[in-house]
């Protein structure tokens, strides 16, 4: 067990409500309006529970929206003026990390309720300016200065992965195809169309060998999760209660070249195994896994890191059809970043809310059967920050 993530004492932190808003291009809607909508819906979902604190997960507002101090801004705009509020930033891992900070605050006894809001406004700048913002997740001095972007990092990983494991050039197609298939019935997804293997093969290159279907679109989005201790939960609820069973995070280097082995997501592995240890569970106990498929290669490496596949074998799970809603380990059950859309720092909150829907049997056409335990893992950059949560239905 990692010393950074000791097993917590017995606790009673629950998910009291969640919200998901449509990921997409919201030209009419500002950052604060996106945020307000998610906050409002989560509060309604939680039966009107009022949070004592607001944790905002966001990565790019300082660059794309020229805005910092989102905590105060959104608390004020959402009718929560006066409460404690702060932004948590860890690139694509911001969502999970914000939930973890809220979880720790509730565990400490200082708070009984907290709102975790993920929000990202990607479309207020266009083209190369957005790429420049995304590239700030890489090492500025030793990667971004050379023209490296997140897609370039992923392409470098993909090239080496295919070379090292002698995998076919379409080895990762199954991840994108699965995500698109799951997004068809997700009204919050930006892409609600299935993807054929042929269309994947013909897709335009973004960063050869990485094609446009290997990469998640960057979109506006907001999602929220309202946490509460058992003592403040409504005594009656139509939906099963979902409890946090494990919460852990770990880091590695920002730069690809600083990883001891680029094809091992060490932080993802450490945080997953710490969360397993906390919850007394193993990979085989996980019924649904929302992993961070910002790029298809991330799916393969995340499955390997979390123990669902041997090193170098993650791609075979997709290839062999084991990641679908009825598969051995369903992933990206609402389309993931690939097809639902990737909303930067909000992504981790989308994942958590989606896991809650699965555990509460509220996933509608995307429902995975017999879900008792779900896991969400989000990544900052190339897994430089990884945050893993395991949730369980009571």
């Amino acid at each position: 067990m990692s010393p950074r993530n000791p097993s917590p004492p017995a606790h009673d932190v629950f998910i009291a409500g969640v919200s998901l808003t449509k990921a997409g291009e919201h030209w009419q809607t500002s950052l604060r309006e996106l945020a307000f909508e998610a906050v409002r819906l989560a509060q309604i979902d939680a039966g009107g529970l009022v949070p004592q604190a607001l944790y905002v997960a966001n990565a790019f507002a300082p660059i794309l929206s020229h805005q910092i101090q989102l905590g105060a801004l959104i608390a004020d705009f959402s009718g929560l003026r006066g409460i404690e509020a702060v932004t948590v930033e860890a690139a694509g891992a911001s969502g999970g990390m914000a939930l973890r900070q809220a979880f720790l605050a509730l565990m400490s006894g200082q708070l009984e309720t907290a709102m975790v809001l993920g929000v990202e406004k990607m479309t207020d700048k266009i083209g190369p300016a957005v790429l420049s913002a995304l590239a700030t997740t890489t090492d500025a001095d030793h990667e971004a200065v050379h023209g490296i972007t997140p897609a370039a990092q992923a392409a470098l990983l993909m090239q080496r992965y295919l070379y090292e494991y002698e995998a076919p050039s379409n080895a990762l197609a199954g991840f994108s195809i699965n995500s698109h298939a799951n997004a068809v019935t997700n009204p919050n997804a930006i892409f609600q169309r299935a993807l054929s293997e042929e269309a994947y093969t013909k897709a335009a290159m973004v960063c050869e060998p990485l094609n446009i279907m290997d990469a998640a679109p960057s979109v506006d989005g907001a999602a929220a999760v309202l946490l509460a201790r058992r003592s403040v939960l409504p005594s009656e609820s139509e939906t099963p209660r979902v409890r946090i069973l494990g919460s852990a995070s770990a880091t590695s280097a920002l730069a690809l070249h600083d990883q001891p082995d680029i094809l091992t997501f060490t932080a993802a592995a450490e945080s997953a195994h710490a969360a397993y240890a906390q919850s007394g569970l193993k990979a085989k106990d996980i019924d649904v896994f929302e992993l961070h498929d910002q790029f298809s290669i991330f799916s393969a490496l995340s499955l390997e890191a979390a123990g669902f596949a041997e090193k170098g074998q993650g791609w075979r799970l997709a290839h062999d059809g084991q990641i679908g809603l009825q598969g051995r380990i369903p992933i990206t059950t609402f389309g993931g970043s690939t097809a639902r859309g990737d909303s930067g720092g909000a992504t981790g909150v989308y994942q958590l809310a989606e896991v809650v829907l699965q555990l509460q049997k509220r996933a509608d056409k995307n429902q995975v059967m017999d879900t008792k335990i779900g896991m969400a893992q989000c990544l900052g950059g190339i897994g430089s920050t990884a945050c893993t949560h395991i949730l369980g239905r009571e």
Partner: protein
Amino acid sequence: MEVSRHWRLKKQRYALEGEVCPHCHAKIFPPRDVCPDCGLDARTLYQFSGRGEVYSFAKVQDAPEAHSEQSPYTVALIRLEEGPLVTAQLTDIGDQPLEVGSPVEMVTRKLRSDGERGMLVYGYKFRPLLRPSI
């Protein structure tokens, strides 16, 4: 306009000046003053040869603002012959087929400019060997 953040890195950028760990002799690039292998203090300067081979590579079609004038360009992870991996662009690729394992050598090139009026940032890139026999 940015000046000092590039200026302070000029030795490593222009000429691949890194460090060597006095304890375990690991070669370190980019320099970080702490040995990634043994964790001890490592500030002894070390001049890398600039020779290495392609560990992975990719062609960037969508470039961020500061690099859009160079698009498309090829980025790579280079395994330096002294051990470390380094991220850099490949340049002057010509007609030679590029593959994992291709030998390359360091050259100092323009990395980016800080707009029309800003400073030019120079630094390491890698190219196929000019003299493959040596």
